[in-house]
């Protein structure tokens, strides 16, 4: 059974329709990527999945319908969203940001050990634990956003452009950690990316969106070798 399944997902901002009926699904434990140019509807798709925009169509997660439910309730089912722009709580400290990620959890002791585990993945965040999060560098804030999502112990992570604005070396490090988290902790991930080459290396499966419609889908390997994708998105 698919972990996440969308059928005929449509979304609009005011009278402008952005998504024109998307159908896609992903299996538990896998990484799926949504590729597409600017304005194709990738960010909106993630926002639609967690109830941040009004949608029509069906979305189910682990067998439950989640379309039309409040974002706060969807989070409680184990979906963590690393938003576009990182969503840092700039006035709070790094550690307070991380603790907020675990806000809905009741197992306080496990939260403490998860905090240590995450500092293990991102030692830089441990150095900055008492620092005001708004003063972290872009790369550190991206790591913080991913870490905040991990603090939920999610079943599914929605990642919106995790490579945005980061130096290539940091992107590599971040994607390495995402892969490790996926393999070790069986966290499923839906990754939206403009950096198609990096995303296809990370993902198991891929969907290509153009102007609010899915135009291509398949395993990451097949998509990577697709002639049109290679020319338009990979640039060689």
């Amino acid at each position, binding site marked *: 059974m698919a972990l996440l399944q969308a059928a005929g997902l449509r979304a609009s901002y005011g009278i402008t329709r952005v998504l024109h009926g998307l159908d896609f699904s992903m299996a538990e434990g896998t990484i799926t990527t949504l590729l597409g140019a600017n304005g194709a509807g990738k960010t909106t798709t993630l926002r639609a999945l*967690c109830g941040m925009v009004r949608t029509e169509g069906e979305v189910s997660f682990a067998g439950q319908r989640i379309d039309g439910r409040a974002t706060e309730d969807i989070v409680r089912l184990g979906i963590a969203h690393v938003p576009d722009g990182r969503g840092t*709580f700039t*006035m709070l400290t790094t550690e*307070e940001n991380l603790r*907020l990620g675990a*806000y809905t959890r009741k197992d306080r002791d496990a939260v403490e050990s998860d905090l240590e585990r995450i500092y293990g993945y991102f030692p830089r965040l441990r150095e900055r634990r008492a620092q005001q999060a708004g003063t972290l560098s872009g790369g550190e804030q991206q790591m913080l956003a991913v870490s905040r999502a991990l603090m939920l112990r999610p079943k599914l992570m929605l990642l919106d452009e995790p490579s945005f604005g980061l130096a290539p070396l940091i992107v590599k490090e971040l994607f390495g950690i995402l892969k490790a988290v996926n393999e070790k902790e069986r966290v499923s991930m839906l990754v939206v990316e403009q950096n198609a080459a990096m995303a296809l290396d990370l993902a198991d499966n891929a969907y290509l969106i153009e102007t609010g419609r899915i135009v291509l889908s398949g395993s990451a390997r097949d998509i990577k070798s697709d002639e049109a994708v290679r020319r338009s998105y990979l640039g060689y």
Partner: protein
Amino acid sequence: MDAFLHQVLAGLATGGIYASLALALVMIYQATHHVNFAQGAMGMCCTYVAWSLINAGMPYWAAFVLTVLIAFVFGVLIERLVIRPVENSPILAVVVVFIALLVIITSITGWIYSYTIKTFPSPFPDQIGLGRYMSPHQVGAIGVTLVVLLLLYLFFRFTPLGLAMRAAAQNPESSRLVGIRVGWMLALGWGLAAAIGSVAGIMIAPSVYLDPNMMAGVLLYAFAAALVGGIDNPAGAVFGGFLVGVLENVLGAYVIGNELKLAVALVLIVGVLVVRPSGFFGKVHVTRV
């Protein structure tokens, strides 16, 4: 010198009350970017509740605690029933709602309890007074103010709920994404602000006597205090409260006379807005255009 010291200390005592009310204003401002003109009236109305409870024979501190709880519920209900529907309205509509609340609460209280002034008891024993310098009630009121501040600080700094409220105030969208029910955090903020306002009302009532308009002047000083300290800075608001209390008293005694005391608050408000709109401790907000 002796008389001067007396004026300063008395100023600190009233300043503590301005500080409480300023803190209530700042709390709502931080969460919603609205200035609640009805904050004083809500505190006054709750003070009448305390008065009724005490007159019905309830021990002072029991009545105090019960009133603070009632005030909390009152604040939550106002947010849910009155403020929520106008949440996304233009700012002027919200201001009108606040003024309407002020008038309605004042009138209903006056209608129930009449406009004749009433005395209100002070719970503090004579032993804690500082002789000629400060009355027992003044010492006690400062003490209560400081305890409220300490509790608030501990709540916001060390509890998960306090952290969630701070998060919701500064980044509602990210807060939803970690599962915080932002709407309830606002209601909770209103409840806390109302509770603090009720403490301010109960503490000032023995000095100014209880009447439906008793908070009008206090609210003005609280505005001045909040602006002096920076409308988005709780610690600044408290500092502002004490500063305004002392300035008001000292200037009233030596410079301008008692009749013009209220003008001190107005001059401060205008002065701060002209010279330094973000207050002494407020953040200067820079926006890219």
